[in-house]
């Protein structure tokens, strides 16, 4: 068993180092981005976070915005798990593992964004339970560290186990996998809820201090996560022998239409409360939607996000549109853009602007922040690509303990 596992590891490593020239080009491109990001990050470590444009007034920015968005992507994996396992709906089941791999990549990016945002990365160990001094259960950040890492471990374990079973030509033990997969549903909800509570619990920031922040987080995540998957599934079935039925894709699109409607409704509920009651707390919404005292940096983004969201909702709502590939993919891109703006800069910046003493500091990410972020996204894509590269042949049963070696040694052009 253990020997087989080592074989599994080494064969996986050999598998990910071999591919056609498109594969190598893609990997090289990602490595280039990672190199650029690393360079920028080294500069940041040497100079301090002063190379970002964050300051005391806006103390969180692009990094934490991306972190928040990606937690949603990670959480959205359950959009596939629920129909597959709870309702035992076969067409989706085989692609559940893809959702889990997406969650792993997203979580690695999340942890990366937190890591580059802290002022003293050398003191990272202070946050490790037992070794450091985790302020649990008081600090929501302590909760977030725990749930994100547990969710990462859980997904990692399930994915590895399923692939190892496929590799060794055995059927996975349903009694082991099913409870874990079912556990991942509340875990996914919890990672995004806890991340929402991170902001939600701060009375000092009225823009975040709203009871529907966590539900809004979940609703938007359930739109943006599957949007990425829908495009990915189409790419996969074109480039690999993986069979993914139209039916599965359209079912996910249908589910997305509901969550998008709910997301828009919650956003409208929040906006109504602020704008109609018109209290002092409205200034943050004003800054986001209309600009404040001549500062309108976020305004075009905010409206782009709203319009993209609305347009995507219509495209997903009408069956004729969502079964048209062009419109479906357009809708995916629109919803992705909408949520990325809303959960990223659209959440963090107006939460902190005007600041606690009423000052407006206009924040825009610096070159360093963009470069570091690109590097982290590249790491996430790299992890996902490598996992896919190894997983697809195993899922197809083409690459197993007995057949793997032969396949590796045969000099044939590799798909993906």
């Amino acid at each position, binding site marked *: 068993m253990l020997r087989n596992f080592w074989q599994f590891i080494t064969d996986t490593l050999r598998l990910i180092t071999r591919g056609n020239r498109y594969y190598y080009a893609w990997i090289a491109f990602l490595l280039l981005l990672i190199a650029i990001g690393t360079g920028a990050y080294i500069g940041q470590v040497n100079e*301090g*976070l002063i190379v970002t444009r964050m300051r005391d007034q806006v103390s969180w920015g692009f990094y934490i915005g991306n972190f928040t968005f990606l937690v949603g992507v990670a959480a959205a994996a359950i959009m596939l798990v629920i129909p597959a396992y709870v309702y035992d709906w076969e067409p989706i089941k085989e692609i559940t593992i893809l959702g889990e791999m997406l969650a792993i990549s997203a979580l690695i990016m999340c942890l990366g964004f*937190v890591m580059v945002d*802290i*002022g003293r990365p050398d003191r990272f*160990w*202070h946050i490790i339970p037992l070794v450091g001094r985790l*302020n649990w259960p008081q*600090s929501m950040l302590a909760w977030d560290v725990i749930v994100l890492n547990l969710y990462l471990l859980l997904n990692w374990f399930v994915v590895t186990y399923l692939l190892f079973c496929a590799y060794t030509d055995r059927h996975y033990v349903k009694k082991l996998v099913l409870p874990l997969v079912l556990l991942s549903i509340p875990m996914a909800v919890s990672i995004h809820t806890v991340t929402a509570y991170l902001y939600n619990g701060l009375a000092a920031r009225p823009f975040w201090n709203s009871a529907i922040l966590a539900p809004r987080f979940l609703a938007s995540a359930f739109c943006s996560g599957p949007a990425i998957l829908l495009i990915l599934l189409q790419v996969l079935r074109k480039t690999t022998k993986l069979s993914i039925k139209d039916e599965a894709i359209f079912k996910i699109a249908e589910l997305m239409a509901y969550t998008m409607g709910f997301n828009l409704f919650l956003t409208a509920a929040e906006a109504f409360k602020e704008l109609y009651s018109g209290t002092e707390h409205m200034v943050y919404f004003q800054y986001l939607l209309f600009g404040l005292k001549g500062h309108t940096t976020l305004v075009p983004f905010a409206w782009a996000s709203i319009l993209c969201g609305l347009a995507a909702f219509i495209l997903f709502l009408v069956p004729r549109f969502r079964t048209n590939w062009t419109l479906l993919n357009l809708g995916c891109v629109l919803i992705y853009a909408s949520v990325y703006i809303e959960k990223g800069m659209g959440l963090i910046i107006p*939460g902190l602007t005007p600041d606690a003493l009423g000052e407006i500091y206009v924040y825009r990410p610096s070159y360093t922040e963009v470069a570091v972020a690109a590097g982290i996204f590249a790491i996430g894509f790299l992890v996902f690509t490598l996992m896919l590269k190894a997983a697809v042949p195993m899922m197809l049963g083409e690459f197993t303990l007995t057949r793997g070696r032969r396949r590796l040694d045969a000099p044939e052009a590799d798909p993906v």
Partner: protein
Amino acid sequence: MTAQEPIQPAEGCASSTPGGGSRREFLGTAVAAVATALTGCGKLSHEEFLQHNFRELSKDEVRDVIARLEREYKEKYGREVKVTNTAPLPGVIFGYALDLSRCIGCRRCVHACVKENNQSRSPEVQWIRVLELEKEEGVNLQHADQYYDPAEVPREGHFYMPVQCQQCKKPPCVKVCPVGATWREKDGITVVDYNWCIGCRYCMAACPYGARHFNWGEPNLPPDQVNPDTHYLGNRPRPKGVVEKCTFCIQRTRKGLYPACVEICPTGSRKFGNLLDKTSEIRYVLENKRVFKLKEELNTQPNFFYFYGV
């Protein structure tokens, strides 16, 4: 005056020492080396890297840490910097009151504070922000201006409101810190262990008073401007990448002196003293003047009071 939140023991307990030791072994030298490489500058010593939270250090460890810091400061600034560790005085909870009818917005307090507390000079980190407000608007922060620059103060139709750490009884910053790098001392002063803070800035997001400040770059403190009388939890020179804040001049007030801002104020707007002492000036103000707390609706319960003296 008021019931206090239970405060974590400030003194290092002996039982934590063996635990600390095993943790250190667990982490090992290799990790320290990696961290040194990560921080780029290569100045990080093993001792500094492995130093535990200040509240968990034994008396001997505190002595060693302070000796190390004094040595490092001497190397860096070429002069003796004394780091004390004066404990809270028994029977003392510090309170602060600020007379809005007297403050003229001269900002001498801001600069005295920067000097006293060894803040970075460029960029200058200021713990006190003086807001210029319109009399017609009252205390409406959306109409506040921190960057007023008239030839003379006070300006017609305006009043001035200095804001600094309010030393809350229920500090949101302490609650949110993921590693317990900040806490409230027995005398009501909220402090930061600059050697334990990881720089996540969650406390800055949580503070309703904008009282926490981050060292975005390497603090620039010219050697000839160093105030050598420091406290571990107060004005000792800070590293980059950590949060800092007003400590009511802990290095002065625990020795019975006034904070630098109180001492410099030309109009006597600033009152400071022991809330538990019935004969103190601060108690007189609280009992006889019209007092209010900033953002009282957030229930942070500041020990910093604004009042109208005339």
